[in-house]
């Protein structure tokens, strides 16, 4: 359960960070988002990662938690990168 929430938060964090970058906004949303919104996304992305770290530390103790956090961070980033690589396929499916 603990692992799952750390993972989900990391996933959400990386997704927000991805969408916070203007050049990726056109990829996914089709237009540039406002600078302000991008800023909020970036902030909330990092906040989600920090929150994941906090949960890991409270749940597992800071030593073990930090290792777990890095592990899930890697998995989440790998998934987001994979999704981003295949976005054309994903978008085609959702549009249908």
């Amino acid at each position, binding site marked *: 359960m603990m692992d799952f929430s750390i993972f989900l938060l990391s996933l959400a964090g990386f997704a927000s960070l991805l969408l916070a970058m203007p050049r990726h906004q056109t990829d996914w949303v089709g237009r540039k988002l406002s600078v302000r919104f991008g800023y909020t996304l970036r902030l909330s992305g990092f906040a989600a990662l920090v929150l994941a770290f906090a949960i890991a530390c409270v749940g597992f103790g800071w030593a073990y938690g930090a290792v777990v956090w*890095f592990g899930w961070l890697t*998995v989440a980033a*790998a998934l987001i990168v994979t999704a981003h*690589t295949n976005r054309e396929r994903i978008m085609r499916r959702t549009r249908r």
Partner: protein
Amino acid sequence: MSEGALPASESLTAHRLPERSFRQSMAWLHEWFGLVPGWVLFLVFLFGTTAFFQQEISGWMRPELRAGGDVTSGALHNIGVTLSPKAPDAGFWGLVLPSPRGGDAIRASWQPRDDSSGEAGEAAFDPATGAEITMRDTRGGWFLYRFHFDLHYMPWWLARYIVCIAALAMLVAILSGIVTHKKIFADFFLLRFGKGQRSWLDAHNVTGVLALPFHLMMTYTGLVALLFHMMPWAVAANFQSEEAFYKAAFPQDTVEASGKPAPVAPLPVLIAQAERLWGASPSFVAISHPGDAASVATLYPLRDALGSNPAPLRLNAVTGAMLNGTTSPGAARATEGVMIQLHAGWFAGPVLRWLYFLAGVGGTVMIATGLVLWTVKRRAKLPDPTRPHFGFRLVERLNIGVIAGSFAGLAVYFLSNRLLPLDMAQRADWEINNLFIAWGALFVWTLARPAKRAWVEALAVCAALYALVPVVNALTTSRGLIPSLIARDWIFVGFDSVMLAMAAMCALAAWKVAAHKPKATPRRKAHELAGAAA
């Protein structure tokens, strides 16, 4: 995808700036410090990754062992009772207890007193019942773990120098790689998997960047683990000999026998005492002068906590009373301890263990794709691609022979465990020999084939061998995939599933290589650029 997506290494080598910029020299450093020790590093990462599941692999390779790693006090009691008459002249008992993750029996060994005519011996006991059991002779996951820093067929000190130097080079390769890959954060999401001709580069970047904390941590802590091997001067300057250092660092009192007989306290009592004082289980119990009134039991803890593992404990083996206070290590030793634990991941629970394993697979893939990338990048620039120069052919052949060969050897190691006759002499050694025979045979085979065919065939052989492992397991034991699923034996289910996953991965890779058609465009482009520069 914009041009900015191209990592610096590629765009720089294509443009050939007259002066070598800082980043360009870093790219050079990355390529050569990655290539030369690359094959050793691949082996270290491949075998090191399997070592995260050392106990589970050992468990699979000893199918006679039904119980997990839980040592019952009844079993301990039985062993104590059996040992006394079995080794009447013993001056020393050693008891290796399995980790809670299982993988081995309780192993007892004894040595005779100096003044007796008794013989040394050893025996294995079931952790659940304490009954003596015979298991197939195998080194299990232990060999894979040792191979990742001691290699094989060579003295361990030489192997460790090789591994140390390779790890140092890897540290250089990682750091120069970060510089080369300039916009690591800005381009973070531009990392891609499997797109066209750049897929080798993409796979190298993705596995390298995403698991970067892991790679850095592993390389650095790995060097710390071999610290005194690499830098013996601190010890050499302060101590007469290495033995003198170990005596000072790990003090051991020698015990004289009193000559008065007294029975050893029941083993469960001694172990319960240690668990009460430590809050941890022992992994090794040494009892000197068993049966004597001055007998001393030294217990070594299982190192499965991150940070504070207790110091060895000395107990009066007759009464169970504590003989030494529990000492805590100095700050430097504690730091070293934490780094080694981070490296080995013994403390990790099941979920974190899988994360370690996945990151390890990522590291192995990173090294393999990096090695292949070296040839891919140079092939386009060869003056005559049909007849490459010797250096290129050497790298290409070593890549196929080491990457696919060692991976196939690993599967053969598991297959040998099931197929070699159980009563064979030096069976454990032959399991290991078979690993290297298969590897060598595949290496020789691929030498005789054109490079692309060699890759496809070697990968197909790997796929077939890994797919065979669960089949042979099901045929030779009663613990195949389906019975294990029904019995909810997750170690056996997990092992067989990973074998099938590896088979699928190799088959996919073989298919990808076979379907790959090298495009003519990059060569023409490079040619044009070279023409423009001249």
